C-alpha cells in the first residue's frame, strides 16, 4: 500500500491578518507550522502503514522553506518527502494548487490512498483535497472521522456529519480528507528527528511534474479576490422550549422525523 499525504505550511496563529489591498493573507514575520489538520492526515497515514504495511510519502507545494514541514513529517515517521517548488507556482488559488498537487501525484506513480487535512487554517477553503481527487478522476470522501477497514480494493470510512456520521465504502485508489476526531497525532521522536535531518527530500519544479504552464500559479488561477470579509457567525441549533414534558415530546417527535428513533 502506498499512502500519500498532502500538507501545507501555515502561519502559527489562529488570527491571520488580511491585507485589505490585495485580499491575501499576511504571512510575513509569522512562524510557519504544519497545518494542524494535516497533522491528523500524517498520523493517519503512519497508522495505516503500521496496520496494513506499505510506504508513506508526504507532498507539499510551497516555497523552499516548506522543506521544514516535510522534515518534521519525516520526524514523525513518514518515509519520504517531495517538495514541489517553483516560482511559477506563486499566487496559486485552490484550483491551481489542486492541479499542481495532482500533477505531482501522477508523477509519483502508483498509490492507494491520498490523505489530506479537511482544510488549512489560513485559507479555510477545504477545496484542495476534493479538487485533487477530481483532477485525478478518483473517488473521495471529505470529513472522515474514522477508517473502519481497508483492503487491497476498497476502504470503508465514517464521514462526520452535523447529525451523526455516514458509513461509506469506496474503491481504491481514492482520496480522503480527515477531521481532528480521527486520531491524536504523535509527537516526533529523537530518532525520527535525526532521520529527518539526514533525509533526502525530492525537489520537483513545474517541469518534473509535467505541469501545463497555463494551469499553474496566478495564471492558472480562475479565482480573483474582489473583496475579503469575515462571514457571519453560525447560528446555534434548534432550541426546544417549554416544560420538561413538552420539551421531551418535541424531542421525541424530532428524533422520529429524523428516523433516529
Amino acid at each position, binding site marked *: 500500500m502506498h499512502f500519500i499525504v498532502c500538507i501545507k505550511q501555515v502561519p502559527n496563529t489562529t488570527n491571520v491578518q488580511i491585507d485589505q489591498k490585495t485580499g491575501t493573507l499576511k504571512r510575513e514575520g509569522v512562524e510557519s507550522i504544519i497545518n494542524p489538520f494535516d497533522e491528523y492526515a500524517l498520523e493517519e497515514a503512519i497508522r495505516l502503514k503500521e496496520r496494513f504495511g506499505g510506504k508513506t510519502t508526504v507532498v507539499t507545494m510551497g516555497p523552499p522553506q516548506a522543506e521544514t514541514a516535510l522534515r518534521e513529517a519525516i520526524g514523525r515517521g513518514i518515509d519520504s518527502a517531495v517538495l514541489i517548488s517553483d516560482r511559477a507556482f506563486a499566487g496559486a488559488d485552490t484550483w491551481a494548487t489542486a492541479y499542481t498537487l495532482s500533477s505531482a501525484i501522477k508523477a509519483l506513480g502508483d498509490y492507494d490512498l491520498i490523505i489530506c487535512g479537511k482544510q488549512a487554517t489560513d485559507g479555510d477553503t477545504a477545496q484542495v483535497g476534493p479538487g485533487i481527487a477530481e483532477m485525478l478522476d478518483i473517488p473521495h470522501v471529505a470529513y472522515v472521522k474514522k477508517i473502519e477497514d481497508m483492503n487491497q480494493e476498497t476502504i470503508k470510512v465514517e464521514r462526520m456529519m452535523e447529525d451523526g456520521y455516514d458509513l461509506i465504502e469506496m474503491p481504491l485508489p481514492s482520496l480522503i480528507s480527515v477531521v481532528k476526531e480521527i486520531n491524536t497525532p*504523535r*509527537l*516526533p*521522536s*529523537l*530518532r525520527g*528527528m*535525526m532521520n529527518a*535531518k539526514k533525509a533526502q527530500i525530492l525537489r520537483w519544479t513545474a517541469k518534473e511534474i509535467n505541469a501545463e504552464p497555463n494551469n499553474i500559479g496566478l495564471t492558472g488561477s480562475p479565482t480573483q479576490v474582489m473583496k475579503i470579509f469575515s462571514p457571519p457567525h453560525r447560528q446555534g441549533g434548534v432550541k426546544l422550549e417549554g416544560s420538561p414534558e413538552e420539551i421531551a415530546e418535541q424531542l421525541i417527535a424530532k428524533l422520529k422525523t429524523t428516523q433516529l428513533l
Partner: protein
Amino acid sequence: MDYFLTEEQQMMVDLSKKIAQEKMKPVREHYDETGDFPWPIVHELAKADLCGVYIPQEYGGFGSGVFGLVLVVEELCKVDGGISLALAATALGTFPILLGANDEQKKKYLPDIASGKKLAAFGLTEPEAGSDATAMRTTAKKDGDFYVLNGTKCFITNAGEAETYTVFANTNPARGARGISCFIVEKGTPGFDFGKKENKMGIRASITKELIFNNCRIPKENLVGKEGHGLIIAQATLDASRPGVAAQALGIAAGALDEAIAYSRTRIQQGKPICSFQGIQHMLADMATEVEAARCLVYQTARMMDATPGKRTTKESAMCKLYASEVAMKVTTNAVQVFGGYGYMKEYPVEKMMRDAKITTLYEGTSQIQRNEIALALIKESASKK
C-alpha cells in the same frame, strides 16, 4: 545567553519542550493533587527516545552524556519538577551500572532503560544512614552463588514502579566504608518488597517508598564492581547525578521566572501593570540573573564531566547542585511574591513550583553536605600544591 548547543542538543531541547507543553502541562495539577504515578507521560518520553539520552549508543541510548540529561531535565522541569523525576531518578539508579558494571551487566540492563521500557531506582539511604551512608545497616551475606540481602532502604524515588534497582549493602561490616558493595536487584525477586508510600510536600507526581529486603537472594552476578567498592560507586554516581538535580532545580526556577514575568505584565494595580513598578522589576532582574548564573554553572559542569570521563568532579558537581537548588528556592519564593495573594493559591502554578523546589536542596546531599564536599575539595587541592 547563547550556549552554542549542537543541532542534536537543540533537538532534545525542542522535543522536551514540546512534550512538556503538550503532554505534561495539561495534567500537572492532576498528578500533584493525586500523587498517581505519571505512566502516560513516561510512555510519551519513551516514545520520544528521551529516556536514554545519557546512555551510550552501544547500549541503545543517544550517547549525549550528562549534558544531554541536563538539557532534557531542565526543559521538562520548567513545566513540572515532579513528573520529570521518573526519568531523572532513573538516571540516578542507572549511573552505578554505567560507572561500575561490567559489559555483560550493561548489555543486560541498559537497553531496556534506554528505551524507556523499564525505570530504575537508586537505593542508598536508610532511616539511620542519610548524609552518613557508611552507617548503613542493610547487609548482603555471600551464600554460595548468591548474596542474601536484609534491611530497609527509605525515601527511594521510583520505588515500586521501577524494575531495576541499584542497592547498596554491607558485605563486610568490620571494614566500615570499605565493606559496602553495590548490587542490581530486580523487582519481583522473592524477599524484595516495598514499604509505605510517602506523602510529600512537593514533587508529588514522583513516588517515594521504602525498599524492604527480607532474606532476598540475588545471584552473585548482580554484584556491581567488586565487593567493598560500593561506596566509591555511590560517590561517583552522586558526582554524575548531582548535575541532574541541579538541572531539575534550574528548570523549576526558570519555569517560575517565566510565570512571574508573564503574570507581572497582566496584573493591573494602580492602573498599571505591576511590571512597570521598579520593586517588581528589580525582583525579576535578580531572579533572571540568578537563573542564568545557575545555568552557566550547571551546563559547564556537565560539559566538563562529558569531556573528561572517569575524572572525579565532586567539587564542581556539588557546586552546581548547591547553587542551582538554592537559586530554585529563592526564585520560586520570589515568584510567589510577584503573584501576591494569587501566588499562594493552587489555581496558579507557582506555589507548586515553590513546593517542588525545596527537595532539590535536600536530596542527593543537603546544601550543607554539598558545602562540606566543596570545602573538603578546596582543602585537598590546597594541600596537594606543595
